[in-house]
């Protein structure tokens, strides 16, 4: 019986394991990916200070520290079920069942699909798939590609692909349909584009970002969006072009693009065919939280956090006794925030294990402050309303606790 099983060896899970080991808990970390690091592994961007955020090196720091503390990390272990027992939890995996007193779910985020006619063809992949192939496996995903979906993540990864010498034709919006409402709407996308201002050194976007909160200016920006797109590196970003179809028989051969009105309707007769051999689809991220649902944790839909999120308090406890959550499962943010949330969760778990004590309570307050500081300084922000979203989910926890007492 472990003091804690941690599901997910991303920045949240690894940091939690480190703080648990520093407080001498018996820890087992499991992850289904062949290497520890989670989505941190693929990350590579330049901070506003000019310094590179190299996910492989950042992962190595965490894994080395975990190794110093003799932390058991098992990769290639997929969790498919969790069961509540009298003394804690049984975590069911492809490698057997692991019992523990406490459980931390740090499964991170998944990408929302943005379907486009023809998207099942080989050569179509999510933008994150291309990031992992390029930066982790070091394999070129194709000779010339195109990105459907304009947001912070796809802009960051488009830069990474270009850096690795992979040619991109452009970034456009995905076809408008029942699923892609938001991502296919030029005005909604323009609003998000201001958050990539530091990635795309374009005067147009920087100018736009000054007026981010003014819908009138945003609509004008969409109306006068340059016909040739706004350049990021050698590649144009378009908000008034849409990928309406992906063509090919056995693999991607081309895509059909069309121009859009400011409201996102295709302008008939504007269709053009562009030859590419791969397509990346970027539909945004949502918390990967099924395992928390399996164990009976209550959920709340909070748009600012990226979707349905397990109810939890500020110190990462859920209403299920002994169940903790940390990282992107609690809301979509950058890996630095996930890391600090992991540290905080680790201390909270120790606090439960050792029967609350003043030293640990103090460390929890400090760790909470650190999460706030990191959030305030984040260079990549997925959602502007993250603080309000966090407050709402924490209030739900408190309300449920009061109702139960």
């Amino acid at each position: 019986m472990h003091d804690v099983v941690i599901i997910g060896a991303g920045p949240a899970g690894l940091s939690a394991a480190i703080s648990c080991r520093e407080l001498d808990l018996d820890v087992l970390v499991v992850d289904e990916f062949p290497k520890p690091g989670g989505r941190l592994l693929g990350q590579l961007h330049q901070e506003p200070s000019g310094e590179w955020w190299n996910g492989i090196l950042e992962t190595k720091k965490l894994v080395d520290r975990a190794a110093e503390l003799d932390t058991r990390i098992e990769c290639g272990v997929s969790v498919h079920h969790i069961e509540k027992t009298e003394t804690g939890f049984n975590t069911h995996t492809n490698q057997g069942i692991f019992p523990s007193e406490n459980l931390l779910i740090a499964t991170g985020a998944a990408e929302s699909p943005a379907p486009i006619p023809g998207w099942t063809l080989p050569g179509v992949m999510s933008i994150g798939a291309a990031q992992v192939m390029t930066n982790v496996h070091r394999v070129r995903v194709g000779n010339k590609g195109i990105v459907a979906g304009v947001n912070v993540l796809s802009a960051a990864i488009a830069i990474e692909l270009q850096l690795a010498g992979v040619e991109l034709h452009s970034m456009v919006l995905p076809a408008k349909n029942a699923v892609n409402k938001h991502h296919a709407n030029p005005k909604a996308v323009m609003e998000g584009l201001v958050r990539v201002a530091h990635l795309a050194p374009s005067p147009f976007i920087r100018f736009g970002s000054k007026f981010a909160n003014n819908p009138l200016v945003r609509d004008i920006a969409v109306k006068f969006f340059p016909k040739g797109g706004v350049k990021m590196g050698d590649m144009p970003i378009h908000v008034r072009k849409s990928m309406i179809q992906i063509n090919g028989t056995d693999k991607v051969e081309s895509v059909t693009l069309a121009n859009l009105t400011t409201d996102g309707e295709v302008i008939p007769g504007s269709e053009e065919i562009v030859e590419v051999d791969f397509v990346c689809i970027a539909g945004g991220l949502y918390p990967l939280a099924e395992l928390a649902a399996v164990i009976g944790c209550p959920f709340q839909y909070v748009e600012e956090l990226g979707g349905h999120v397990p109810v939890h308090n500020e110190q990462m406890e859920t209403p299920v006794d002994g169940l903790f959550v940390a990282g992107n499962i609690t809301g979509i943010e950058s890996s630095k925030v996930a890391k600090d949330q992991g540290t905080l969760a680790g201390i909270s778990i120790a606090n439960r294990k050792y029967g609350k004590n003043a030293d640990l309570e103090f460390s929890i307050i400090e760790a909470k402050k650190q999460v706030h500081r990191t959030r305030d300084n984040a260079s990549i922000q997925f959602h502007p309303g993250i603080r309000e979203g966090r407050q709402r989910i924490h209030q739900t926890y408190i309300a449920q606790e009061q109702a139960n007492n």
Partner: protein
Amino acid sequence: MNKNRIMDHPVLESLGNPKKITFTFDGKKYEGFEGDTIASALLANGIRKLRVQEATGNPRSIYCNIGHCFECRVAVNGKQGYRACVTLIEENMAVDSGQVLPHPLHPDVEDLPKTYADYAKNYKKGGNPNA
């Protein structure tokens, strides 16, 4: 095998000389690097198609590359249901692509659409893809 490899990178470390691993895919021999998943080793060799949709025979490849979507199902050493994107290659591993399976409701799978264009022409009525 290094056709699609990014050996050198302006920011990340260069790959150097990783250990080579030999495996088979549908009976043919391929080489990958130690640490490759089935999906990355095959793509490095220029192979995208990992299986066909079990009913229609339409070609499929990776989608998410991190274990979430199950689009990349292959058989490993005779056992089905492995995700190519999270399974490491091993020396002499035999990987087989996913095949068409008998379909009780559609005996004539040949009639099913193979491309989106086929689908749009024959199946989509009155512009409603769900009709």
